[in-house]
């Protein structure tokens, strides 16, 4: 008998026909769920659009009065002074300096903690230390700022007396404090990423005679690289967006300098201060908030484009 005869005979005998591989009903529930999930993700686009809208008009009105060239290449940032100058370089350099010092602290410490938690820590130790580090992320930024100002700065001065210390502010100390604050972002997320590398990879490496050091650094770490880079980029974004710690520990003087003992102003600190300060809304000084915000947005966008490219390259190799 041929297959169709079986089907026909089955139908005649009251038995259900041979199953098919496509869905028997259109599955509207699935489509609805997919639409809902898409809208969750698309919300981010809505937020970005809203941010761009709220930034765009005041930025445009700002650039009617200040030339973009002067804005982007000027070295004097004094928007609220009578003889105003709008050169944004000092605060850009201030932001980058803080991020630099923060990452110098956070990346080694965060990665070391993450690798330890994922590969070396015994189970009960990990259960205590991982949440303990996450508390670091939750300490109010005011407290961290005051800690940096009152405790850390004198300490660093005692340890490194040969640097020229003037005044209570220091961008290096502020950067260290920010770095400490973002360590949990790096350690927790990269720990999760490394732990999810399949055990088979590790065991295969051990079977071939690798040491624990080699397994951790040459097998697990590269396999988890996309998660680790995501963690680092998230931490860097957090460092860029930090306002209070920097204001308290690094002051608000827009000095264009690389000296770690100097007082500087970051873009976010400027925005935070001016938005909650006494400047009248609608004036050009107030509009600088939006211009600086727009510049910051563009800068982080570029950084993220670059990071996504990088992660994509690495991810292809290991999956």
């Amino acid at each position, binding site marked *: 008998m041929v297959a169709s005869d079986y089907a026909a005979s089955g139908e005649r005998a009251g038995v259900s026909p041979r199953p098919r591989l496509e869905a028997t009903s259109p599955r509207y529930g699935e489509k609805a769920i997919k639409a809902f999930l898409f809208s969750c993700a698309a919300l981010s686009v809505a937020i970005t659009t809203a941010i761009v809208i709220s930034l765009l008009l005041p930025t445009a009105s700002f650039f009617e009065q200040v030339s973009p060239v002067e804005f982007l290449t000027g070295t004097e940032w004094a928007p*609220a002074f009578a003889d105003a100058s709008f050169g944004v370089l000092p605060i850009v350099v201030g932001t980058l300096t803080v991020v630099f010092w923060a990452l110098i602290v956070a990346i080694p410490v965060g990665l070391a903690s993450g690798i330890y938690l994922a590969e070396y820590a015994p189970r009960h130790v990990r259960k205590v230390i991982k949440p303990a580090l996450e508390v670091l992320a939750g300490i109010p930024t005011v407290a961290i700022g005051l800690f940096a100002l009152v405790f850390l700065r004198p300490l660093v001065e005692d340890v490194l007396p040969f640097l020229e210390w003037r*005044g209570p502010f220091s961008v290096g100390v502020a950067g260290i404090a920010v770095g400490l604050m973002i360590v949990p972002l790096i350690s927790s997320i990269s720990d999760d990423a490394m732990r999810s590398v399949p055990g088979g990879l590790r065991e295969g490496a051990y079977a071939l005679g690798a040491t624990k050091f080699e397994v951790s650094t040459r097998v697990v770490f590269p396999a988890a690289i996309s998660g680790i880079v995501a963690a680092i980029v998230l931490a860097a974004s957090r460092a860029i967006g930090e306002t*209070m710690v920097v204001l308290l520990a690094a*002051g608000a003087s827009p000095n264009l300098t690389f000296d770690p003992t100097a007082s500087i102003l970051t873009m976010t600190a400027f925005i935070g201060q001016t938005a909650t*300060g*006494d400047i009248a*809304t609608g004036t050009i000084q107030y509009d600088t908030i939006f211009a600086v915000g727009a510049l910051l947005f563009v800068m982080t966008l570029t950084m993220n484009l670059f990071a996504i490219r990088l992660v994509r390259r690495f991810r292809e190799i290991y999956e």
Partner: protein
Amino acid sequence: MPRNRKYLCLVTAVAAVTLVMVGCGGSDDNGGELSGTVRLDGSSTVAPLSEAAAELFQNENPDVQVTVGTSGTGGGFEKFCNGETEISDASRPIADDEVEACGANGISFEQITVANDALSVLVNPENPVDCLSAEQLNQIWAPGSKVKSWGEIDALEPAYDESLELYGPGTDSGTFDYFTDAINGEEGAQRTDYNNIGEDDNTGIVGVEGSPGGMFYVGFSYYVENQDRVKALAVDGGDGCVEPSLETVQGGTYTPLGRGLFIYPSGAALEKPEVLAFVQFYIENQAEIAEAAGYIPLTDEQEEEALAKVESLTS
């Protein structure tokens, strides 16, 4: 897992007890007959005054809910001219743009001085100088000034040759606007190479305390609280050296650095009995309020003037 469950029960119990304590902590009595809400927002300099006023007022009128926000003088006016607050706290007079905005929305207002403040020039206790004239201050703080040490100041007595460490408030603050206007003749006119202390005025105190050549200008309450750590200079506004104090500010002799702190109630808000009662209370009890907040009370004259302004808004 029994161990985890016990832990969970314990944590929940502790959380429940805490929430009950917190939630039931408020008192519940029914005093005066006024009720409603009064919203203030604006300068964080004026906020301690408004908070003290709110607290004293609420002691007598528990059914009125008074809230005080600190989004800054500019932010406060923005909300005020949008009709979102009843009273705006301000450490500077209302700006032209803001007057326009209020006008466009039909909000009428009056500027009411609720306290006096003395901008104090603070230096390190080791600094032998006791008095600076307004001209000397101008020389130090003027835009483009190149004075780098105390020795370069004209006619300084006694001689002092430490390098100058300048500390100043944020450029978005009313203190900055007032000082630059009073000393340098124009709001915002000041040299740019000084230490901007950002948000926390206490840092300026720390800076001056640690630096023999330090100088910082700040509101009076910061000097009063730190008299053991810094020294206030007397200022010669043309009639001799005058130290900042309650008497000199009220007497008008501490010039040019005595200033007023303001609230701006709106005409529409004052039609509500609770708001009117609050503003009148604020002015009538301003001495107690100013003392609680660390500022300088109004003179009798100023108090009468304030009450008259409230009258004019409500008639």
